[in-house]
Every structure is written in structure tokens, then in C-alpha cells.
């Protein structure tokens, strides 16, 4: 039960949401045009993206300034915690859709196409030679590819992300002890690990396209592989940007040992990205 001693902070009317909506008008129409190879698409998309970045800087900047002014007390802090928790939960469900697709294909649709259970007739009529061994590009694509092994770069990446989970915790402990140089050091280490992870991921994609003939168009395996690792990589990118922002805020003297939700929210997000990777490592690379 909230025992509010101060007034809850309700901000004055803000221009940032409508700027964000303007960005999305451009991006929505721009993306639709781009994907249909129509003129104007990229320019609209570019303008929209620029406005979005401007909005994010402005909006988050305003929240940071408010935080520095000290308008956020215990009750606002709890709101941020609830908000971030449920945001991360919604992200988990977003990944669940893609994991669900992977499991469905491997458990149901591919065995059915190979003639198991209810799929007998389809198999005999359409693709009698299809055996349904995973990994597969599906019965209709005669595309030979080599699947991505687990024990090369992916294993190293697992180690990198797990280590980064440790370093961000060390940074948190340093912050709680008001050890500012330790905080900055461990933040830098976390950022370096995140960037290295992304570098390896980009290298892995290049390797897959150039040497393994493993593409987004490589049927069931290619679709799930790139969708899951790609959206994960996108989230690592976002997380790394958030870490960099937090690093600069730490360097500027923000955050107090007892009041630093901005830091914690990013740490939560980073751990979430880490856990999703473990799921990926097991279900996309290992089994």
C-alpha cells in the first residue's frame, strides 16, 4: 500500500509524445513504401528515424533532468520499477512468439511434412522424398546450407554475455558502495563485452552468408535462426546504447548509492537480454 507523504509527480503537458507520433507517421508510411520498392520510402523512413532519435534524446533528457532536480520520490520510484518489470515481461512475450514458431515447426509442421501423424497424404502427394531431419530448409527448397555450429563463436558469445552479467553486477555493487571509479570501470567493461558480442554476431552472419550458404531465405532453419538471433542482436544493441548512456551519466556524477533506478532498469534489461541469449544458445544452436 502506498503511503504517499509527498505529492506524486504529475508532469506538465509535454511535446515529446506528439513528436514521437510524428516520427511514427513518417516511419510507418516510409517502411510500407520501402518494402514495396516505391519511391519516397527511404527518405520518409530516414526523416522518421531522425525525428524518433530527437524525441528519445529530448524525452529521456527531460526525465533525467527531473530526476536530478529530485522530483522523484519513493512512490515514483516504485512506479518505474513496476513499469520496467512489465515492459520486460512484454519483451519476453515478444520473443515467446518466435520461440513458439521454432518449437511448432520442429515438433509439428516439419514431422507432418515428412509424413508423420496427420500429414501422411500431404507427404505422399507433395514431397515423398522429404525426411524432415533438422536442420532443414523445408521440403520445397533445394537449398543446401551448413547449420551454424554451437561451439565456435556462439559459445564464446555465451561466455561474453554471462561475463557481462557479472561485470554489471560489480558496477552495481560499486555504485552502492559509492565507489565511483569502480562503477565507471565495470560499466566500461560491460559495454566492451556487449560491443564485442555484437562484433562477433556480425562476423557470424557474414560467415553464414559467405561460407555456409545459410540465409534468411533458407527455409525453416534460416527463418528461425535469423529472426531469433537478429531480434536478440537488436535488443543487445539497444541494451548497449542504454549502457553507454548510463556510463556517461555515471561519469557526470548522476546516481546516488540509495537512489539509482535509471541504472537498475538498464541492468535489469541487460540481464533479460542475457537470459534470452541462453534460450537461444540452447534451442537455436545446441539442440
Amino acid at each position: 500500500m502506498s503511503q504517499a507523504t509527498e505529492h506524486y509527480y504529475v508532469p506538465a503537458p509535454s511535446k515529446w509524445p506528439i513528436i514521437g507520433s510524428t516520427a511514427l507517421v513518417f516511419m510507418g508510411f516510409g517502411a510500407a513504401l520501402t518494402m514495396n520498392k516505391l519511391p519516397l520510402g527511404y527518405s520518409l523512413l530516414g526523416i522518421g528515424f531522425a525525428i524518433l532519435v530527437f524525441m528519445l534524446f529530448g524525452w529521456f533528457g527531460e526525465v533525467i533532468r527531473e530526476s536530478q532536480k529530485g522530483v522523484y520520490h519513493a512512490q515514483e520510484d516504485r512506479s518505474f520499477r513496476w513499469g520496467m518489470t512489465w515492459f520486460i515481461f512484454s519483451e519476453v512475450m515478444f520473443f515467446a512468439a518466435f520461440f513458439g514458431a521454432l518449437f511448432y515447426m520442429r515438433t509439428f509442421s516439419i514431422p507432418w511434412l515428412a509424413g508423420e501423424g496427420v500429414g501422411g497424404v500431404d507427404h505422399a502427394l507433395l514431397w515423398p522424398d522429404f525426411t524432415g531431419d533438422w536442420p532443414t530448409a523445408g521440403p520445397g527448397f533445394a537449398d543446401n546450407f551448413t547449420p551454424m555450429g554451437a561451439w565456435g563463436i556462439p559459445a564464446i558469445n555465451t561466455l561474453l554475455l554471462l561475463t557481462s552479467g557479472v561485470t554489471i553486477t560489480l558496477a552495481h555493487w560499486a555504485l552502492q558502495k559509492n565507489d565511483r571509479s569502480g562503477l565507471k570501470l565495470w560499466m566500461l567493461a560491460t559495454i566492451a563485452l556487449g560491443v564485442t558480442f555484437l562484433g562477433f554476431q556480425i562476423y557470424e552472419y557474414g560467415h553464414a552468408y559467405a561460407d555456409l550458404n545459410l540465409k534468411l531465405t533458407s527455409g525453416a532453419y534460416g527463418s528461425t535462426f535469423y529472426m531469433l538471433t537478429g531480434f536478440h542482436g537488436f535488443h543487445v544493441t539497444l541494451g548497449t546504447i542504454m549502457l553507454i548512456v548510463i556510463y556517461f551519466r555515471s561519469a557526470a556524477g548522476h546516481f546516488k548509492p540509495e537512489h539509482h533506478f535509471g541504472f537498475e532498469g538498464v541492468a535489469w534489461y541487460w540481464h533479460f537480454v542475457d537470459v534470452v541469449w541462453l534460450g537461444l544458445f540452447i534451442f537455436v544452436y545446441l539442440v
Partner: protein
Amino acid sequence: MAVVQDVHGHVHGHPTGIMRWIGATNHKDIGTMYLCFSLTMLFIGGFLIMGVRAELFMPGMQIFEPEVFNSFTTLHGLIMVFGAIMPAFVGFANWQVPMMIGAPDMAFARMNNWSFWLLPVAASLLIGSFFVPGGAAAGGWTFYPPLSTQGGLGVDMMIFAIHILGASSIMGAINIITTILNMRAPGMTLMKMPMFVWTWLITAYLLVLVMPVLAGTVTMLLTDRHFGTSFFNAAGGGDPVLFQHVFWFFGHPEVYIMILPSFGIVSEVIPTFARKPLFGYSSMVYATASIAILSCIVWAHHMFSVGMPAAGQLFFMYATMLIAVPTGVKVFNWTATMWRGSMTFETPMLFAIGFILLFVIGGFSGVVCALVPVDIQVQDTYYVIAHFHYVLVSGSLFSLFAGAYYWLPKWSGRMYDETLGKWHFWLSMVFFNLTFFVQHFLGLAGMPRRIPDYALQFADFNMISSIGAFGFGLAQLLFVYIVIKCLRSGEKAPDMPWDGAKTLEWTHLPTPAPYHSFETPPVVKF
């Protein structure tokens, strides 16, 4: 801008001009915008379906090319679900949740603004898609592949509109959850919260659970369309039926997202006009939670005819029928609340009772549809159309009208015209049943949905249904007139226009509710 901040950073005063609306951080202003947006969308979606009913007025092809007809039915569904019904409930939540729990505003006031202002963006994409080459999406509001992997620019605009609507819903839901969990006044324990707040809390959980899955679904559809993935393509090892699974994993809880807040509104209206406390409050809470949990494990009952193992059909059939139990608890409780109450029948009460009666018919036809052998017969017929309009129109929409008449005096400080309100109810009631009751017979006789022409034997009932639809559409114009009349020249509402209202917005606030309510939380004692 006439805004003054005190030392706590708290906003006082009353912003004016266009920035009051564009930059709004006040939950009441944002709620008003949600409600106006939703009403506009109701008429746009309604206009589309008037076109459809005009085409179906008699057999043969009269007005539309089949492709245009299909885009009308498709956009009617999308606009009504995502543009009319869902935003209307969020509008109610914005107005009512902070007042009912004694909070000064929503937990995230600026994000609240963005949740709203994303809606016109998505609406412009959806409605704009009618005017692009190839026209709007025409594969039905459920946009199953392969139809939706084949369409043109309009389908992509629909996909991005759904992404944006999803972002709006997720932000709205997180805001509502946080507000309810963190902003309640001292003494307002969870089990003392008004039912409307409870139903919205559970609805918001459902939203954060399933809207991201819908985002993932349309993302897979997009990559299948443009980037060569094979999620929904059997040649690549995927399956078009996979789309249906992920879509309905969102889609079935979505049904309850649109009806649970209705239950909340009706659970506020009935006790007020029966002048008795809600019968079985805690069982109402548990029933709502049970419905929400069950709603997540019944999705494949939308897919009985696409082919699935018998064990799957049996599981989804029995799980679906199980929902009738908590729903029955609710109907029983509403009825028991009215039992021997000193009832009066003002417009909100009429709509609430109409809701119970007709929603139960929709619920029963839902149990019929849940039976696998019956569903295989009625799948994609007008029986299904009749079923879900009984729960969505005479369920969700009627409860929205009940809520609107009930709280309009609190929001505006003025009374609506009771006679006209009753006219609105009775016209809606008669024309609604005229439109949809006959569709049960059409469906049982085998008339398929989403087809612009039909065999001669369906002609009479289709003509009746079309007349009903036109009447129902016109009756809703009366609602707009009643609201405008109320706002302009309605007589002043007393602080407590309803005898039996017991929630904080009636007991602790003047009428009309002040622009900033509960800046200092009230102490709640029951």
C-alpha cells in the same frame, strides 16, 4: 501555457489552447480524447458495414467489386476491434481508474499521452490504405496467410498499423497496472477496489501477455512477405496454420480484453440502480481471474476445421466449455444483486440489463460453437458472425453505453436527456436483434461469411438483417445527439445523481469532477 509548478513539481492550473490536448498529461483530458477517437472510429467502422449490409440487402452484385467488399469487411473488423472498442475501454480506464482508487493521475502521465496519440497514427495507416494502389487489406480482420502474404501495399500498412496499435496498448496496459498497484489511496486494499478497477487490472495483464505475441506474428508475416522467410510457407518447412496458432494465442485473450472491462462497468451500474451492494464481490474477482487464465488456453477453438489431432480438438473443446463456469458465476451474481433490490430503470441500468440478457445469448451460442462437431458445420458461417456480435455489440458496446450514461453526469456536470436515452436503448435493442438474431438462422442454413453474394433462399433474412443494421446505425446518431445536448444544455447534475453509487468518484468528489482530483489521497474506510 497556464501551468504553474509548485516545489513538488506538481502541476496545477488548467492548460488551455491546443496544447491542452496535444500535450495532455491529465488523465481526464486523455480519457476524453480516447472516447472521442473511439466514437469517431465507431462511425467509420459502422459506415463500412453499412456498405456491406447494403450490398447484402438482396442477392446479386449491386454496389461493390468483390475485392472492395472484402476490404470493407476486413477494415470494419480491424477498426471496430482496435479503433472503437479497445480505445473506448482505455478511455473509461483513464477517466475512472484514478478517481476510483483515489489517485491524483495515471502513474506515467506523459506515456499515457503517447498511448493515445499513437492511435491516430495507426488509424491514418489503416484508413489511408483504402487509397493506395491495390486497396486496403482484404483477407479478413484475422489476415490469415496465404491471402495476407499475397496482398499489396495495403497489407503492409495494416501490419505497421497493428505494430503501432500494439505499442499503444502495451504502454496503456503497463500504465494501468502500475497505477492500480502503486497509486491506490491508503485503505484501498486490493479486495476493496471497485470491480471496474479489478477487471481492468486483469485486462491489462492480458494485454501485456498477448499484444507482444501479435507484434511477433505480424513481424513474421512481414518477413514472409518481403524478406523470403518461410514461417507460414509449407515449402520451407513452415505452416500457414502456425499463423493461426500464434494469431489466436493473441486473438482469444483479445476477446476477453474486450469483454472483461464490460463486466466491470456492469458490475458498477447494477448495484447502483438495484441499490444493493454487488452480490459475491470476491467470487466476481476470482471469476474474472479464472476467465482470464482460461482464455489463454482455448485459442485453437477458432481453428477446429483447419485440421488438428483429435486430442487437441478435445482439449480445446473442454477448456472452452469450462469458461462458461466463471461466466455463469458472474451472470448469477448480477442477477442476485438485482434480486429484491429497489430497482429503477434509468438508461445505464437498461443498457446493463440488456447487456446481461443479450450477452448470455452470445455466451450460449459460444458454447454451441465450442462443440467440435457443431463448429465444423458452422465455421465461417453467419452463425459465428451472430455469435460474436452478440458478445461484442450487445456485450462490449452496450456496456460502454451503460458506462457512458452512468458517468456522463460525473464527467460533464450535466444530466443527459433521460427520455432520449431510453429511446436510444430501445431502438438499439430492437434493431440489434433484428440485425443479428436472424443471422443465426442464416448461418445454420449454411450462408458463408465474407462473400458479397448469396443464394436466393437467404434473401428474406438478409433483407431483415440489413434493415436492422441501418436502423442500428441511425440509432447511434441519436447517441451523439444526446451527448452533445447533454454537454451543451443538459440540466446541472447534483453531486450524487444516483442513489446507490458507492465508489470514490461519487462519494468523495464534487460533480463535475475537478480537473485535478485526489492530489492528496483520501483515506478510504469501508
